[in-house]
């Protein structure tokens, strides 16, 4: 059933026209970012700087496009780079400090990005990618592909192992789960999807700028997750809805969507707790 909704959501931009079509296309990219985030969260790592994965991929794509006239090169570099970086971060910072480390990294990227200048291009204005690729098709495809990967991941051995690790790392090791292997694999999958979303975003706007490392990109998946009450299988739909609502609010009053995010974060324990409790009721046999 969920798979059908994914396909319908991915088809929506083609069925609709004009600004709405464009907006839903963008919502699909944000949902892809959320999916990437949720894979990592499934294993217990809450990334507050997930924009780094997305941003570095988008930036690398733009830079390699500029240097070598190749988009694929950026994507191929960004996946292993993000995966290695995430893995090193986890190894060196541990579960709690991972949040701080990813956030700091994303902030650092935001600060550094305006100073990246290649052949008098880039800097604060970012990089342009002039292409004639079907951006809407790419964003829809990346959404459906990541959603399928996500659904398969949740039902796979890897998904169950990741959930066990999230619950109790030592207990997981004590029953023979190879924790480091699982972490590395989830890092690779998460950053691959994040990189894919970054590339889609760069192609969608034909431009990348330092804003791509913004806090908003980082907290968006977290807020979507909070709204689902921890039921991450619904994060893609929640993200699409949240993105559309926040865009509507932003259109009404510039920055109003940030107020919505703030409200959701402030009331997150209550919202999350309520949705979680509702979900648990049916499990009390």
């Amino acid at each position, binding site marked *: 059933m969920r798979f059908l909704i994914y396909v319908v959501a991915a088809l929506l931009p083609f069925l609709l026209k004009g600004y709405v079509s464009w907006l839903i296309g963008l919502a699909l990219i944000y949902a892809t970012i959320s999916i990437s985030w949720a894979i990592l969260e499934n294993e217990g790592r809450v990334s507050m700087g997930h924009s780094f994965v997305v941003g570095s991929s988008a930036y690398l794509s733009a830079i390699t496009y500029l240097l070598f006239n190749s988009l694929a090169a950026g994507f191929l570099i960004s996946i292993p780079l993000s995966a290695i970086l995430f893995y090193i971060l986890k190894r060196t910072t541990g579960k709690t400090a991972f949040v701080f480390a990813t956030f700091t990294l994303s902030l650092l990227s935001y600060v550094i990005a305006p100073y990246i200048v290649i052949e008098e291009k880039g800097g604060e204005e970012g990089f342009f990618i002039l292409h004639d690729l079907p951006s809407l098709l790419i964003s829809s495809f990346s959404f459906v592909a990541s959603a399928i990967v996500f659904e398969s991941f949740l039902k796979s051995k890897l998904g169950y192992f990741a959930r066990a690790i999230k619950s109790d790392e030592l207990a997981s090791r*004590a029953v023979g789960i190879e924790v480091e292997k699982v972490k590395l694999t989830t890092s690779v999958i998460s950053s691959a999807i994040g990189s894919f979303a970054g590339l889609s975003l760069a192609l969608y706007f034909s431009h990348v700028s330092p804003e791509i490392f913004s806090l908003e990109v980082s907290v968006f998946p977290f807020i979507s997750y909070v709204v689902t009450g921890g039921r991450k299988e619904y994060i893609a739909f929640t993200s699409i809805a949240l993105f559309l609502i926040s865009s509507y609010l932003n259109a009404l009053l510039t920055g109003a969507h940030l107020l919505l995010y703030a409200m959701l974060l402030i009331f997150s324990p209550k919202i999350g707790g309520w949705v979680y409790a509702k979900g*648990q009721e049916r499990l009390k046999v």
Partner: protein
Amino acid sequence: MLKVRNVSKSKGRVMILKNVSFDLEDGETLGLFGPNGSGKSTLMKIIAGIETPSCGKVFLDDLDVTALPPEKMVKLGVVYAFQIPRNFREMTVLENLAVVLMNYHSVDESFKLARRMLRDWDLDYIAERKVEFISHGESRLLEILKAYATNPRVLLLDEPFAGLDVENVFKVREKIERLREEGLTMIITSHRRRILSNLADRFLKMEGGKIVES
């Protein structure tokens, strides 16, 4: 089968284990008893690879397995069931067991096998319940069952009767007796010897980090 040689463990200035040595034969059940803080749990954790000794060695079939990580020890057949059950809170009872079996079987097979095992252990009525909604006794049984699901050669049960009421002590005891009848090699700890009677072939008493009676 299992040899512990001169194992010591210190944390800061405190010596938790002092030169502990013993052998465990294939199919034998060893009862390890002693007061709280005598080092029983630390010794079990060292054997299982959860903690590392300050000095000394642990051998399994003459293979030096000292300080191997727990996941490697599980592969070698040495499994530890925690004193305070550490089940996976986000999962149902069935998923808790199935995830262990997934180390050896496919996802579907693991679920099938887990259902069968829960039925065998009279726990099928809580299969779909999340572990936070089960009793301490059920949680304890699940912890042991999870360890058993790894198909161990040596099962280390740390205080399996701690915090249980009489009825649950009886239930857990019955399951351990069953494992013993199957010929499983086990070490069971308790702070009272009486509770281990008829369960162990041999007893070791620990006090102040040393074996004081064997």
